[in-house]
């Protein structure tokens, strides 16, 4: 029998790996990949709580909003990433420091 805790464990592992990706990558697109993992873990946790908690679709709706927000975030962030690449000719997040005071 697969219980709530198993899904939460998977969510925790996905979240931790996403956070690790965000921290260790210097490529800006890699950082965005990490945030996608984190958002996925959150959505999975929402669905798991919704399924095992009260029997409504609230968990699904919150996960739906998370997916929509992730899509919007990805579109805007990738556009910004392309502009950065065009202007700086690099995607390394450490080199884009023109605004450093």
């Amino acid at each position, binding site marked *: 029998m697969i219980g709530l805790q198993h899904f939460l464990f998977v969510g925790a592992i996905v979240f931790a790996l996403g956070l690790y990706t965000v921290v260790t990558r210097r490529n800006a697109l890699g950082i965005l990949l990490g945030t996608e993992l984190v958002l996925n873990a959150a959505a999975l946790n929402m669905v798991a709580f919704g399924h095992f908690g009260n029997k409504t679709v609230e968990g699904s709706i919150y996960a739906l909003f998370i997916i929509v927000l992730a899509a919007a975030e990805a*579109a805007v962030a990738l556009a910004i990433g392309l502009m950065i690449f065009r202007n700086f000719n690099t995607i390394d997040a450490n080199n884009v420091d023109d605004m450093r005071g």
Partner: protein
Amino acid sequence: MTIAACALIAFSKNLVYSAFSLLGAFAGVAGMMILLGADFLGVIQILVYVGGILVLYLFAVLMTAGISDVKLSNPISSVKIAVPALVVLLILLGKLIYTTKWFVAEETPIASTTSAIGESLLTEYLLPFELISILLLAALVGAVAAARREVK
């Protein structure tokens, strides 16, 4: 399978491999959502993530960083600090999940959630629904405005 794909994303040296293994991660999460009785959400996950976001990422990755210049495109920094932090975080989360007494409702037969989601989106969650449509429009316009070249 999901965890393996996620580990590949996190530890792969080449960003293109990471972007491709995103497919496994998204598909795995979608499968688990369907396993949890959220059939509509699983389908949406596949449609939006695999169909939309993944393709977007692949385009961006292939446009910005050449496949060949692995070292230049993806140098890994601060691994020495990140790995212990990752392990500590995992242990803490695992302990938290394991020790908490979760409230679990009794099993009910799995029914299709699509109509229920649609109904509550248009009644109880109407305001967030409309807000999110405006947000999507703004994101769309913003992305186009940010990514296009200046027209002289």
